[in-house]
């Protein structure tokens, strides 16, 4: 789960990482109130989960209430790369001497935590990596050992961060690492990490991705999932607890297992179609799950055919077939279904579907994944 900047900063503050005083604002009046509380000059920042906000005009400096009004009015409702701005973050503007970069992630290849630190911050780290790879210090951290202040300080020295910023940097790195580990982040990134003329080091931006698997031990995350960016289809799927991702195509997809669902998307694409979604119903392909899945697919106006791709392992074919028959009695579909049922007890399942006397305009069966994909794509294109 990706956090908005303001949420990331609030999350950082929980771990004592210094951030600028500020507040979120959903209206021009709230923006002015936030600015008055933070103290001028302020920065008015669009809260969207996409890069390049500054270039798009989504980040503006304001010296007084009138300027806040003007900028907030312009930015609220603005479209930045397909993301509409509904919320602002207004914070006290900092004097900046230097800009650095710091992040913690999991390095999957090394199976260790990875600190990336650079004295060249404020720009995309990928660009720095391309121009001057040596400008980025990469330090692997054994999760069973952790990161201490001395190691963090040495990393800052290696990154050619100046003497007067070293202690502040090391302190923030240790706190950011705690936020990353105890806070169950997939990514905790500060860009830029700034050095003020006063010598203080502080986080001017916050990019945080939380590990959804750790939600059970973070009751404080409830407010973040409430603001998660989901389209209407994804919202509906969430209420049914389905693993669903909305896409732009016309073939609705239901499959059991994440790998098979991904593979189904690929096969639909290979035969010239495009998937409307990713949907993994997992191992429990019973009538309730199937009905919910069909309801979500049916809600998508772009869907012109539905491809149900089931491979029975533990999930048995006849259970799936019964689920579909029952689901069809509950949900009135706008698009025809093509099903491929294979694996354990697939024959029995196909028999149940045949015996149910469902019209071919509603449901048809194909023997293989490829044949089913072709039929589903043909139906979608008619």
């Amino acid at each position, binding site marked *: 789960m990706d956090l908005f900047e303001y949420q990331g900063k609030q999350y950082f503050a929980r771990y004592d990482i210094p951030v600028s005083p500020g507040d979120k604002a959903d209206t021009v009046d709230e923006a002015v109130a936030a600015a008055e509380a933070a103290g001028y000059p302020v920065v008015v920042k669009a809260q969207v989960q996409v890069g390049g906000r500054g270039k798009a005009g989504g980040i503006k400096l304001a010296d007084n209430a009138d300027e806040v009004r003007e900028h907030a009015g312009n930015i609220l409702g603005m479209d930045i790369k397909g993301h509409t701005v509904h919320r602002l973050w207004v914070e006290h503007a900092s004097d900046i001497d230097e800009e650095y970069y710091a992040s913690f992630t999991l390095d999957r290849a090394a199976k260790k935590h990875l600190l990336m630190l650079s004295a060249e911050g404020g720009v995309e780290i990928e660009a720095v990596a391309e121009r001057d790879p040596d400008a980025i210090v990469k330090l692997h951290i054994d999760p069973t050992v952790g990161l201490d202040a001395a190691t963090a300080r040495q990393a800052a020295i290696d990154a050619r961060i100046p003497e007067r910023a070293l202690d502040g940097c090391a302190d923030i790195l240790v706190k950011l690492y705690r936020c990353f580990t105890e806070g169950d982040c997939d990514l905790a990134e500060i860009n830029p990490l700034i050095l003020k003329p006063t010598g203080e080091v502080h986080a001017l931006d916050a990019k945080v991705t939380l590990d959804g698997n750790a939600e059970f031990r973070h009751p404080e995350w409830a407010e973040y999932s409430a603001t998660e960016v989901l389209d209407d289809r994804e919202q509906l799927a969430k209420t049914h607890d389905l693993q669903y*991702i909305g896409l732009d195509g016309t073939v609705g997809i239901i499959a059991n297992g994440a*790998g098979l669902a991904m593979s189904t998307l690929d096969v639909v694409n290979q035969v010239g179609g495009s998937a409307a979604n990713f949907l993994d119903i997992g191992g429990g392909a019973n009538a309730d799950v199937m009905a919910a899945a069909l309801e979500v697919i049916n809600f998508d106006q772009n869907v012109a055919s539905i491809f149900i791709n089931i491979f029975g392992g533990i999930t048995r074919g006849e259970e799936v077939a019964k689920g579909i028959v029952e689901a069809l009695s509950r949900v009135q579909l706008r698009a025809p279904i093509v099903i491929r049922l294979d694996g354990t007890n697939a024959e029995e399942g196909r028999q149940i579907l045949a015996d149910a006397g469902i019209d071919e305009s509603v449901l048809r069966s194909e023997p293989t994944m490829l044949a089913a994909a072709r039929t589903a794509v043909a139906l979608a294109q008619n």
Partner: protein
Amino acid sequence: MSIFVNENTKVIVQGLTGGQGKYHGLRNRDYGTNVVAGVTPGKGGQDVEGIPVFDSVAEAVAATGADASFVAVPPKAAPAAILEAAGAGVGFVVCITEGIPAQDEAHVYNTLVSDFPGTRLLGPNCPGIISPGKCNIGITAGEIAQAPSASGPNVGIVSRSGTLTYQALYELKQKGIGVSTCVGIGGDPVPGTNFIDCLREFEADPETHAMIMIGEIGGSAEEEAAEFIRSNVTKPMSAYIAGVTAPPGKKMGHAGAIVSGGKGTAQGKMDALADAGVKVGLNPTEAGELMAQIVAGLG
């Protein structure tokens, strides 16, 4: 022969008294797996359909001589369960649990490396391992796996995805091709056992003559495997990578399946494997057909 497990493997099930543990533990036993004990703290002395339950892994191992464990407990309890098995000297631990936090997984992995180098973890979030006719630990439906033939050729399977593992087993069964061992390494970011671990074992296993590898988007495990194959694998291979059409930045069901920053794309993985001499299919069926051609050539 087979890899990691065989007909003599003695298995305990951690969480045998729970829903998942009982269902799959008993299925594994029905398949013929030597399931010798269950472990559930506080339920020692009970039994599940004749399988004795112990309070701790150490007690179960002492009483039965078990050398493998099947961890089927919820995400909160799984990290401690894995380390308990390792601490009791169990050499092979299969964890099917889905939804373990990545921080816990990284911690468990590095603890095993530093403190319990004698223990191999398979998973988490994996379907398990099956050596057809000998041993089945996990949730694979045994009936879709073709037993290896004495004369060969037999195929080893290694896969990051559950259902696609079954699909691969099924494709081979329909073609009458025997499987030496099928290993599901799981779709999480820090799997205990990776492609290379399995390929190395398959390469050394005289009963395995060719391998199918099934990968998916995210991370760089397939690229690393390709490097390994280039210089260490002599047996022929086919492969399939799921997620060619997956949009960047979206987790496709598995915690580890995400294309980010242009890295971990299916195309990059397919190219790396093809460069290493692996026959890459565009879908699971094609990978199965390519394997049938390979096997026919070995005939």
